[in-house]
């Protein structure tokens, strides 16, 4: 299972290195969202500074949708789904591999977006440990739930509209949790942030387990 996961993750990351879709399209989109928030919320009145953690995670969430669509569209093209089923790869391994690849891309995106926030919104960054751990669990949550629901929506004509409808309500706790944890870290009171990390940890574990067991049946149909 682990071997299969690494094989799939390696393939997906190689695909990204060769095509640069996330780098050339998703990252600029994320930065664009940051700039749009600045237009919508007047930076001079302090609104932007107070809303920074929430805006950061909303930007991550929207970019994640694009990254997920990309990650799943490469598998639904031209018989790749059949090829995967014929390959003898463990479905759980395929799931974990895709999650790993998406999470890696999101992590890079989060770091760059963090730099963007620090520069554009002049945020003073404190509470490094909490920030980093929050990023890890939130990214795992988004990648796991996103990959599972992405496959639910994959291969259908309505997938572009179905994935946000399914995924965003489910990710609401992650958005709330990651935002509160960031607020706590930036406010210098990390102890308020750790319960949220725990909640997101539960969420991530739930979806990883669900994906490991549910991915087989999802690949199987038809």
């Amino acid at each position, binding site marked *: 299972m682990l071997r299969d996961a690494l094989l799939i993750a390696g393939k997906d990351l190689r695909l990204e290195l060769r095509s640069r879709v996330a780098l050339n399209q998703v990252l600029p989109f994320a930065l664009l969202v940051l700039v749009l928030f600045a237009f919508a919320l007047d930076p001079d009145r302090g609104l932007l500074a107070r809303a920074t953690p929430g805006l950061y995670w909303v930007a991550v969430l929207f970019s994640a949708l694009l990254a997920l669509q990309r990650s799943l569209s490469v598998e639904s093209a031209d018989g790749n789904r*059949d090829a995967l089923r014929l390959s003898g790869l463990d479905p759980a391994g395929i799931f974990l591999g895709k999650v790993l690849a998406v999470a890696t891309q999101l992590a890079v995106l989060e770091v760059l977006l963090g730099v963007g926030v620090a520069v554009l919104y002049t945020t003073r960054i404190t509470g490094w440990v909490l920030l980093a751990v929050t990023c890890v669990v939130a990214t795992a949550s988004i990648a796991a739930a996103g990959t599972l629901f992405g496959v639910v929506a994959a291969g259908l004509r309505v997938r572009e509209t179905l994935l946000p409808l399914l995924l965003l309500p489910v990710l609401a706790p992650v958005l709330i949790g990651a935002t509160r944890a960031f607020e706590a870290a930036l406010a210098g009171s990390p102890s308020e942030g750790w319960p949220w990390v725990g909640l997101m940890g539960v969420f991530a574990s739930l979806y990883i387990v669900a994906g490991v067991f549910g991915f087989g049946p999802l690949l199987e149909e038809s």
Partner: protein
Amino acid sequence: MRPSVPVPPTEAVIRLRGVVALLGRFPALAGIDLEVAPRRIVLLRGANGAGKTTLLRTLAGLIAVAEGQATVLGVDLVADRRAVRHRVGLLGHATGLYDDLTVGDNVRFWARAAGAEADDAEQALVRLGLAGRLRSVAVSRLSAGQRRRTSLACLIARRPELWLLDEPHAGLDQDGRDLVDTILREATAAGATVLLSSHELDRSLQLADEVVTIAGGVVVADTGMSAP
């Protein structure tokens, strides 16, 4: 090509009894009876929509058997059709290749996914004439014939026990078609069994040991059930 024969030679590789398979609500196979002995090359004939592609996909364990009995390579498809998948090689209309990866990446990935070693991928690339400049070209920039060769390379690297080929000659030049025939003969010599559909009638009649004709999702003619 290494031998790959766990099936005892007298046992039929494929044994279908009244197999019904559905595409959505449409019974593309409406009761197929078919028996294929090992090491044979079988040509599937039939008009468009007769059920050739569905039959090949059902044999590969991709489509569920809705009614009837089916055994492929000793695996009961009704009970567990997943168990047969990694032992067959299916070449369909779709290539199953990642457009943004290179030829070499694709063959290596699918070979490793099937549990083959790096050597097998390398040999397959050489065999299909893809070991040179083409190895590092992205699949999206290949011609149809070159894509076909890449798919075939992925297939060879898997070393399947049962080859299921949907129009393997399509899109290939003269050399490519000859190469396909040679590869298939070698595969049967090494113990594998081949089912193919083709519009290249003269060529495939020469290649095939027997001809099975299907129409309306059932077998209407079979030139020989007897073992060679």
